[in-house]
């Protein structure tokens, strides 16, 4: 069954690690262009879901469809090639290289066969990388070795690398984790600005409810592997179950 409006569809996903249930009958439809945040306490199943979408983990039962195609059996490489990219909670970047070279690798991996053996540092590639760097306000860090860069910049670079391929869906795993409180909003502003250029579908895992409320249109709340709420920010964040099990009974102001 293919439905064009459903870019990503998870059907009846179950996943256990021994006695621990990480996903229980998960059904999700994500539409093109949506900004969705996944919330829940640690171990609720958010990252497991993300890992299943990107092919790192396979569900015990159920299927995941992308543009109507069943991607459940595919590996992360093929899924990435099909248009689902991700960033990581701990940035997965190439430490001895510069930020510019990291993006060059990311760009290189997206090349088609006819350009595969051309010089990776061609003007065309350089220009595109410079554009990405500008979009993420990373110009001043371009030629610095990434192992020397501050946490927030490393996060941005990790996301920029995922974006280079121009995916349809971008999954961000806790984009503000490990970043100081005062840095969170500037970081999210930069990310939101950079992503606004593309008509991207963005799914991100986040613990900070203010960030969730400010940067997503839809929220999916997880608890013990189950979805306990799914809808717009105000409805979900004011949901009784969400307040009890996820946000800790804090009344969230409407936007």
């Amino acid at each position, binding site marked *: 069954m293919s439905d064009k409006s459903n870019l990503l569809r998870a059907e009846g996903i179950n996943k256990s690690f021994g006695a621990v249930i990480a996903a229980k009958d998960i059904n999700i439809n994500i539409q093109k262009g949506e900004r969705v945040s996944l919330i829940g306490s640690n171990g609720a199943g958010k990252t497991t879901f993300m890992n299943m979408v990107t092919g790192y983990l396979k569900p015990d039962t159920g299927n995941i469809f992308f543009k109507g195609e069943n991607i459940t059996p595919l590996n992360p490489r093929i899924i990435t090639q099909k248009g689902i990219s991700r960033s990581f909670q701990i940035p997965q970047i190439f430490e001895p290289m510069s930020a510019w070279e990291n993006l060059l690798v990311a760009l290189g*991996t997206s090349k088609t066969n006819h350009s595969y053996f051309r010089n990776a540092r061609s003007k065309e590639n350089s220009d595109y990388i410079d554009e990405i760097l500008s979009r993420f306000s990373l110009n001043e860090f371009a030629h610095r070795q990434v192992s020397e860069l501050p946490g927030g910049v490393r996060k941005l670079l990790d996301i920029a690398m995922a974006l280079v391929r121009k995916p349809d869906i971008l999954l961000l795993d806790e984009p503000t984790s490990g970043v100081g409180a005062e840095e969170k909003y500037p970081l999210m502003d930069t990310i939101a600005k950079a992503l606004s250029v593309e008509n991207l579908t963005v799914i991100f895992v986040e613990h900070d409810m203010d960030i969730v409320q400010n940067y997503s249109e839809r929220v999916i709340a997880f608890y013990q592997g189950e979805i306990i709420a799914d809808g717009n920010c105000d409805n979900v964040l004011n949901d009784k179950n969400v307040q009890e099990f996820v946000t800790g009974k804090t009344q969230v102001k409407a936007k």
Partner: protein
Amino acid sequence: MPLKLLNNVFFQSIFLMSLLVVVGIFIPNWLVFVITKAIAYGLVGLGIITLMRGGLVSFGQGFVFGIGGYTAGLLGTQAGLTDAVLLLFISFIFTGFVGLIIAPLLARYRDIFFAMLSLAFSMVLYGILIKIDAIGGSDGFVLPESTYFGIKPSKEYADYILYVVSVIMTGIVSILLRYYYDSTPGLIALAVRENELRVEYLGSSAFNVTVLNFTIAAGLGGMGGALNGIALGHIDPEFTYWTTSGEFVFISILAGYLSVPAVFLAALLLELVRSFSGRYFPDTWQLILGVFLILSIIFIPSGIGSFFKQLFDKLKNK
């Protein structure tokens, strides 16, 4: 403009090749022979640094070195093919093909498992070669004298002609390899070395890059083996022995993976140490080699190539 030219791989190589060809006229024959052997070993080392760029080291390049040598030798004795250029080229292609066949198996392994599996291949080949009397068993066999485009040079010039051929062919290979290192898969290999998982999540295959690198390394090893066989005029199973493979690893560690010319310099150093210790301090060559290796690991852990890289980075920034 001159600095720009100096930074161009093509011009660097042409300059170095021309210099070596001219220098070869003025140096004694024994040194011409030593440099030719160093080029043969350097070619294998070049294959190993291609793998090292992807985070792997092969302990068994004697396998492809032996296949290349035996390919050239058997084509000479059995098929009457004596053209050195053709033998080097065929050995490169054939050994590369053998590499392509076993690469998918090797590419599934990493670190010490990759190293030991590659060593296992060379040990198996060694075991087979010493048992086959038809190709000389443990004694090996003599190769016919080489010709060059149908011409057989006099004994006086044979070493120099082979030297020139090896310089030119190696120069061409080195240029191509430099371009490969700068291409997308060459760059991805460096990324695989650092973070394989991320490479997969960027949509590229670490496995495919490793297969490609091993195939190239095999081809280079085969060409080196053929050149060594032609230079010596003899081939035996020692080509595939694990100590021979160890010498290639030594060259690669000494050179580092940052520079192509450094590999040939490291190979030349090895050959010179071998020649001089053999002549003046018999039976101590392993001792000297060991000390040399310890010193180089302690004082130049990134290899001789790091000096070259620093030099060219300075030139670039000027």
